[in-house]
């Protein structure tokens, strides 16, 4: 028999609600279900009872396609390549307030150290109370150099200073921490774009809290549009999340998720596994 739009729609509606319950943003869930309908319409199937299984299998493939983005980034390989050129690898970490930028930088620094790369941290959050002390504590615990200026200093100047330090001392990687900011704040987004222009990083990483709902789409779109994102790190995945934010973010940016944060310790950084997330999102 042939699958027709009318008998597909009720099943797709159910799946759409499941996606939304699992934190896929509403417009992303809608668009995926529209694409699914086009993809399946007219498909020949053996028995009508199989239609739900066919829809689910196709949905799995579509979600996997979206989350296994075309641009794959091997983070450690990227750092190694700069090392071979004798240039410091520069990564800029951005995102809205409280998403885990500072903690993630510490985890990434720890990972690089374990792989034999030296790191210098740039405290370009010169705004928030306690930001310098927070990053400094991580730097001390990891035995890593941190470049800081005073509160109120120019964030771009701190970053530039850290890159000069890395070049002068042959340090392999510079990780730049920035102040959290809402994507709706034009001035702060302009400030961030300026930092990026001055620093010219090899990688701009957006941190997104895995508990975020529909705002994940707006964050990803606006940061990508105004600053330019190369990769995303999804944090707080250990909070028993359903993972929909991973789909929302990759759908709108087409950029890969390079790591997921799975806790508050330095080792709590894991590789992003699209297959695992697909299974969580469709349940």
């Amino acid at each position, binding site marked *: 028999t042939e699958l027709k739009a009318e008998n597909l729609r009720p099943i797709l509606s159910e799946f759409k*609600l499941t996606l*939304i*319950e*699992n*934190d896929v*943003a*509403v*417009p992303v869930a809608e668009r995926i279900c529209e694409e699914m309908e086009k993809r399946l319409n007219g498909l020949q199937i053996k028995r009508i009872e199989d239609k739900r299984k066919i829809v689910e299998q196709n949905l799995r493939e579509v979600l996997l396609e979206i989350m296994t983005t075309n641009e794959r980034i091997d983070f450690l390989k990227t750092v190694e390549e700069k090392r071979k050129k004798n240039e410091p690898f520069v990564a800029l970490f951005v995102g*809205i*307030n*409280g*998403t*885990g930028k500072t903690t993630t930088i510490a985890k990434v620094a720890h990972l690089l150290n374990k792989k034999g790369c030296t790191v210098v941290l740039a405290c370009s959050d010169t705004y*928030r*109370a*306690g*930001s*310098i*002390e*927070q*990053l*400094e*504590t*991580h730097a001390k*615990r990891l035995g890593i150099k941190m470049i800081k200026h005073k509160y109120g200093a120019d964030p771009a100047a701190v970053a530039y200073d850290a890159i000069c330090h890395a070049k002068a001392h042959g340090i392999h990687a510079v990780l730049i921490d920035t102040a959290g900011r*809402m*994507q*709706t*704040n034009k001035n702060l987004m302009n400030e961030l774009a300026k930092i990026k222009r001055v620093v010219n990083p090899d990688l701009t990483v957006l941190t997104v*809290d895995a*508990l*975020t*709902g*529909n*705002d*994940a789409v*707006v*964050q990803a779109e606006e940061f990508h549009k105004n600053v330019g994102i190369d990769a995303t790190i999804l944090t*707080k995945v*250990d*909070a*028993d*999340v*359903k993972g*929909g*934010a991973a789909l929302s973010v990759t759908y709108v940016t087409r950029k890969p998720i390079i790591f997921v944060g799975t806790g*508050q310790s330095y080792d709590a950084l894991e590789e992003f596994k699209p297959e695992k997330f697909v299974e969580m999102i469709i349940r």
Partner: protein
Amino acid sequence: RLGASLHEALRKLFKAAVVDEAVVKELIRDVQRALLQADVNVQLVLDISKRIEERALKEKVPPGISRREHVIKVVYEELTRFLGEKPVPLKVEPGKRKVLMLVGIQGSGKTTAAAKLARYFQKRGLKPALICADTYRPGAFDQLQQLASRINVPVYGDPKGKDPVKIALEGLRLFNDKDIVIVDTAGRHKEEQALIKEMKMLEEKIKPDEVMLVIDGTIGQQALVQAKAFNEATSIGSILLTKLDGSARGGGALSAVVATGAPIKFISTGEKIEDIEPFVPSRFVGRLLG
């Protein structure tokens, strides 16, 4: 963006020649979509829209208002049913010390909120004090201390301390003449059993007058289950909703209210200490629906 979709839905309602079942059903679909995009819990949205549909189609329209106005009134009433009709203030009286303990998920805005609340009550002639009972986060004490010094509010903490109960009890002993003492705690989520247990013990030992759950305005569908877990550990007395200066609609707050039965007392609308205001249900429903 969301406001546009519901505004459009209401415009369709107003332009309809006859407010018949089809028009009402279309409005309900639009309201559902608006609420889902506002991060309101899926089950809650289905429950609310079912009630709206029943009332809009079966209830007798009261005399003097049109069918159209009745439908809008039903939508509004069903939403405010959860949030409460009137704002519920946080009662602080001079000379009757109130101890407020802030809890919530990592990064939700507790430490910043603690300082904002202190400033809010200071402006009203009351004597606030702050305690940093977060022994985990690097720089937690520095953060609270820097905020406190900006507003001249005393703060107590022990950056090297490992026991939040000991720190909180000592702080409460020192601040026995204050009108409100706000205790900031470490962020935690429902899977971190040891931290949830610690929060429970902290509440049992310091016996706060109120435990306030700080909820991130950007939180999605997990708000309900997380708030439930917090409420089971330390009965939540009130909610503070943060980051409403962004684009998120804050629907997760509705889930938190349903999960805890606690009222939302404040909202935070920015990073500055002044960016806090008492929660007004009608304004929030407006925001949810755009």
